[in-house]
């Protein structure tokens, strides 16, 4: 069964100062010799996914993020469930609602001439080229444990995503980094 939840980015989210802890896949590590990852504007979903809409039995649950922009900086999107206060300093643990992370390898801004990074290419069946390199992408976080926990707690699901910027160029926007169209919650038997 697939459950879809649409979300829009909350524009008023505050920028979170300071480096993130445990920014890589190996969570909970101390950042000795840390290289100053930055925290961009946190995404807080404005809509809930009702758990009543999710099939009660599943072996796997994915959070699919659709239409993710990747034109700028490279970053980690740290996904929390039902923890609207999550920030860069929130430990990435199940008890804090941490569901997993996705990573974006950004293009680093536009290094072409005017219009080079415009992706509104017309739909033309005779165009042999691959789609534009900046076509928004899809990221999948396998979030089975976190979704099951939310269902056990009978809590409708809200997402908070903390973007941790790892690398950028002089052409990158460093505040409004995380942009996507919507997310899907998909379960599998």
């Amino acid at each position, binding site marked *: 069964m697939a459950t879809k939840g649409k979300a829009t980015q909350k524009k008023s989210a505050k920028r979170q100062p300071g480096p993130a802890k445990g920014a890589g896949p190996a969570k909970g590590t101390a950042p000795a010799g840390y290289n100053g990852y930055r925290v961009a504007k946190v995404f807080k979903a404005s809509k809930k996914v009702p758990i009543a809409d999710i099939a009660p039995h599943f072996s796997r649950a994915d959070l699919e993020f659709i239409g993710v922009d990747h034109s700028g900086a490279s970053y980690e999107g740290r996904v929390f469930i039902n923890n609207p206060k999550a920030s860069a300093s929130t430990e990435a643990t199940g008890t804090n609602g941490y569901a997993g992370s996705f990573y974006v390898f950004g293009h*680093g801004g536009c290094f072409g001439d005017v219009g080079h990074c415009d992706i509104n290419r017309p739909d033309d069946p005779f165009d042999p080229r691959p789609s534009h390199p900046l076509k928004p992408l899809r990221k999948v976080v396998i979030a089975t444990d976190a979704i099951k926990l939310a269902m056990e707690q009978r809590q409708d699901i809200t997402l908070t995503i903390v973007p941790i910027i790892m*690398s950028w160029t002089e052409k990158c926007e460093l505040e409004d980094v995380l942009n996507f169209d919507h997310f899907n919650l998909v379960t599998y038997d």
Partner: protein
Amino acid sequence: MASLTLRKNIDSLHATELQALREAYKKAQQIMDNRSYNHFAGLHGIPNWWCWHHERSQHSRVNANLFLPWHRAYLLYFEKAIQSQAPPGVKVGLPWWDWTSARSHADGVPRAFSAASVSGQPNPLFRARIVAPSANPPINRVTRRFPGNPSELPTPAQVNSLLDLTSFNDFTDQLEGYHDFIHGWTGGNNGSVGGDMGNVGTAAWDPIFWSHHCMIDRLWYRWQAKQGMNNITPTLLTMVLEPFGMTVREVLSINALGYEYAVSSISVGAR
């Protein structure tokens, strides 16, 4: 009959093998024609933008994830260019960087890539010059790298768990996530600007790019060994990996492409 190229762990290369690799990279970096390091680096991002990441479409409304096949062809062409610059009689293979290893978790970027100089000479595996006059603004500088904390690197258990995924789409999606992380981690930043591995445009100029992608390619090879060499979405098979002219079907077998992955190798003379 030609033997297969052995791609080895960078940490297990003998001193002579590492020296031959350095000489080949150095020569490729000193030329500027279509055999050059600069030429191949420029195919990925700036200025040619051929690289294929995540799902895109081509001749179809269906999105295709050619991330793994495209980079396999890319590595092969680059390896041939490097082999052409190697010392006479020496067959170099691109080494892979195991960013899950205990050594990487202690040291981060391997010493072979992190040493700025070797025997008093600039280390061609440390950095390379980006010459991209058509970029806006034009780029002409050496690469930068500000790697993160080694303890953040993925663990063997995390990566091995990917090998249990049975669907190609699942596997490539999840592996690309680790790939993306390593790019951001390796490029990193110095507080004011990021390193080149951290953005698609300049990543391939950093000499460690090729060994990162050998690791990715090797993981795909290991996954194929476990889940089936032809385990891939059938509609992808006839798609062409531009600008290399090879189809996805043609890059499924690394032995058919003339190489294999080894952890180490030892040669012992018969006499």
